[in-house]
């Protein structure tokens, strides 16, 4: 790099704690999130492994029932709010959004840093509840169990989630405004990478849904701390109303989690197929459709709750409708491979695994949207399997795909492809071994959140527990080879995958403010079929390497 650019990369800007903790550079904030979210992922994962080990036998012999209840409650709370919801947006999204749209940073860099501090502040509350003795409400906080009967540290956990909600809203506002106001010249909406579209759709959901969760959590905390009874049936409060408010957030929250994953896959598949994304506009618009329709279907969590049958029928109908945009996406991703030149780098493997797992998770959703079948499957392991196929098989797999895809850009280093491919495969095998048996358990009638179970279910539980160990190994491996690549990895070229996104037009790792001159965009995203890509830049803004 030339000495005129001082310092040359954002990583070289200083390594003191202050340079990291007080940074407003979106790329460094992304790292702050990455490190904290990874810690939470493994904390929540450890709880999952403990649960699976406990469930290897029908009797509750490893941990007592209230400990088990705390394990699954905290597993849910940590994984949902301290990993899945912020995961891709706050790490990869934070890092890439400005780079992808040709901006120097997010619209509000200080708000971005503040959102991380709010996140940490909230997570302290949650960690306090873990250390102090746990929460035994389940991640759903259903009233009146959570308000009147639960004996864990419900208030601090709820408060933690409430505070993290602010960080989510901050990120959402920041992303929405950034996409609207900071796109580079020539970067029209339909030239945006799909990842940006999905981040935008996700932000929309974050901003509009999170406050409703906040409201319901406030009411829980008020009831527990101040004795104000809003959901107390003895005063005339309606426990179902809590469920409506909770799922008004928590169903769209599923789309907060999965949409950015879809975005990542939409970047990776074209790159390693050397083909433009099939049906770009349909994929882009279906992201928005998912964000909007996602709000219309929450009642399908409540078919047997006692809500009106009339309402249930409407919610079921709308749930089938929301399946359509997802189906469109799967179709388009598959056809993107057609007539491509496909190579199987680690991130591509993850993306292909995503495709399979997401498809089978999504198809299971049809069973749960079909009213009479859901009556049987609701609150069983079938539901657990379904959402883990979407959330872990879909979202976490996509997250891994993205992490590997942009790792050279994030760090300026290459990792071992062999190790990566092995880890991806181990994860895929472990995942299916863990969660496929749970479909069988659910159909057989095994209820969820059971500490002990009738012995005839043991066969599937043992398979699932064995799978969990394999899955854990699969997730631990990247910690080592990605970690060691930071020190021993080969220097990454600027565009190792020969991809088209604007982010690849910067150096690896990118300079502090991304672009010396704001680039001018002249072509659509995924122009993989245009000739001479390697030589033609979007706009010359960087001196050629010496």
């Amino acid at each position, binding site marked *: 790099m030339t000495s005129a650019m001082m310092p040359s990369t954002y990583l070289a800007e200083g390594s003191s704690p202050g340079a990291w903790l007080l940074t407003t550079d979106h790329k460094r904030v992304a790292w702050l999130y990455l490190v904290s979210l990874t810690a939470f992922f493994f904390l929540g994962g450890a709880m999952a492994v403990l649960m699976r080990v406990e469930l290897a036998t029908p009797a509750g012999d490893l941990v007592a029932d209230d400990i088990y209840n705390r394990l699954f409650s905290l597993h849910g709370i940590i994984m949902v709010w301290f990993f899945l919801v912020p995961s891709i947006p706050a790490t990869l999204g934070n890092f890439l959004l400005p780079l992808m749209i040709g901006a120097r940073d997010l619209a509000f860099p200080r708000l971005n840093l503040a959102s991380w501090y709010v996140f940490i502040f909230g997570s302290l509350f949650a960690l306090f509840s873990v250390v102090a003795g746990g929460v035994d409400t389940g991640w759903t906080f259903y009233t009146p169990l959570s308000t009147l009967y639960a004996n864990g540290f419900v208030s601090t956990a709820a408060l933690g989630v409430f505070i993290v909600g602010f960080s989510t809203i901050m990120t959402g*506002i920041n992303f929405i405004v950034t996409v609207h*106001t*900071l796109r580079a010249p020539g970067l029209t909406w339909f030239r945006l990478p799909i990842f940006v579209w999905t981040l935008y759709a996700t932000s929309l959901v974050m901003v509009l849904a999170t*406050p409703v969760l906040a*409201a*319901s959590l*406030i009411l829980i905390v008020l009831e527990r701390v101040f004795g104000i009874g809003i959901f107390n049936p003895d*005063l*005339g409060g309606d426990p179902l109303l809590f469920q409506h408010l909770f799922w008004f957030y928590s169903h769209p929250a599923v789309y907060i989690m999965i949409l950015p994953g879809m975005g990542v896959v939409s970047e990776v598949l074209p790159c390693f197929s050397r083909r433009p994304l099939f049906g770009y506009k349909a994929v882009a618009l279906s992201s928005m459709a998912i964000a909007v329709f996602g709000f219309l279907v929450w009642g399908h969590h409540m078919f047997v709750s006692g809500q009106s049958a009339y309402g249930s029928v409407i919610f079921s109908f709308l749930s089938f409708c929301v399946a359509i945009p997802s189906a469109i996406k799967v179709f388009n991703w598959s056809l993107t491979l057609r007539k491509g030149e496909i190579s199987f780098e680690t991130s591509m493997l993850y993306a292909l695994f995503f495709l399979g797992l997401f498809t089978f998770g999504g198809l299971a959703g049809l069973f749960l949207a079909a009213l009479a079948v859901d009556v049987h499957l609701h609150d069983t392991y079938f539901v657990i399997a379904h959402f883990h196929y979407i959330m872990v098989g879909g979202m976490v797999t996509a997250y891994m795909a993205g992490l590997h895809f942009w790792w050279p850009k994030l760090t300026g280093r290459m990792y071992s492809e062999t190790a990566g491919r092995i880890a991806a495969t181990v994860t895929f095998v472990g995942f299916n071994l863990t969660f496929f048996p749970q479909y069988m358990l659910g159909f057989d009638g095994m209820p969820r959140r059971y500490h002990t179970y009738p012995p005839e279910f043991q066969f599937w539980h043992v398979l699932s527990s064995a799978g969990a160990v394999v899955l854990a190994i699969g997730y631990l491996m990247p910690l080592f080879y990605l970690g060691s690549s930071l020190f021993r990895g080969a220097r990454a070229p600027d565009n190792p995958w020969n991809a088209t996104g604007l982010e690849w037009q910067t150096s690896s790792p990118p300079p502090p403010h991304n672009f010396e001159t704001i680039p001018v965009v002249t072509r659509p995203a995924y122009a993989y079929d245009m000739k001479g890509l390697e030589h033609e830049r979007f706009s010359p803004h960087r001196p050629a390497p010496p």
Partner: protein
Amino acid sequence: MSGTESIVFDSPRREWRADTFAMWVFVGSEAMLFGAIFLVFLFAHIDFGPAFASASKHLSLPLGTFNTAVLITSSFTMALAHMFALHKRWRPAVWSLLATSSLGVCFLVVKGIEYGKEIDEGLAPLLGLPFRYAGPDPVHAEFFFSLYFTMTCLHALHLVGGILAIAGLLAFWPKARPGNRQRRVVAVGLYWHFVDIVWVFMFPVLYLINR
């Protein structure tokens, strides 16, 4: 020209646009928060209309009306501050901001007096305080007062936030460049007006159930 506060924006106009938009998105987000609380109230009202109506009569209508007027006035002075700031008439802008925050404090004081009265009369079903309610259906009247305290406290907290925002704005006022002063007044103003709108709905919903 370096008219922007952040290096991300290449023109002050764009930065202004981003700021205003962000505030509006935030206001929309807040609207969802209060919407959810109003939803809870709506269903309770549908279920226990008569009990709510008689419980509502125990609130002080004069104080509530006075407070509504206070808040409307504060919104007006906030709008004046906005106008003066845009015309770079800094002195009247500062006075308008001071008036706005004083009116906000006034609202809180009156609200505090109301709370005191209600606690004295035994109408506050919180922190284990005795709930002594003479009217019919005390159980659902208690529900009404639960909601009343929840909603008004949440609103009052937002107002405290607004007052702190104005205080912060004034604290950094002398050092701020004209453009930043204007952007901040606009942003704080949008928030302040929103808090006012929330009260505009809360007042009739809580105080004016079939007097």
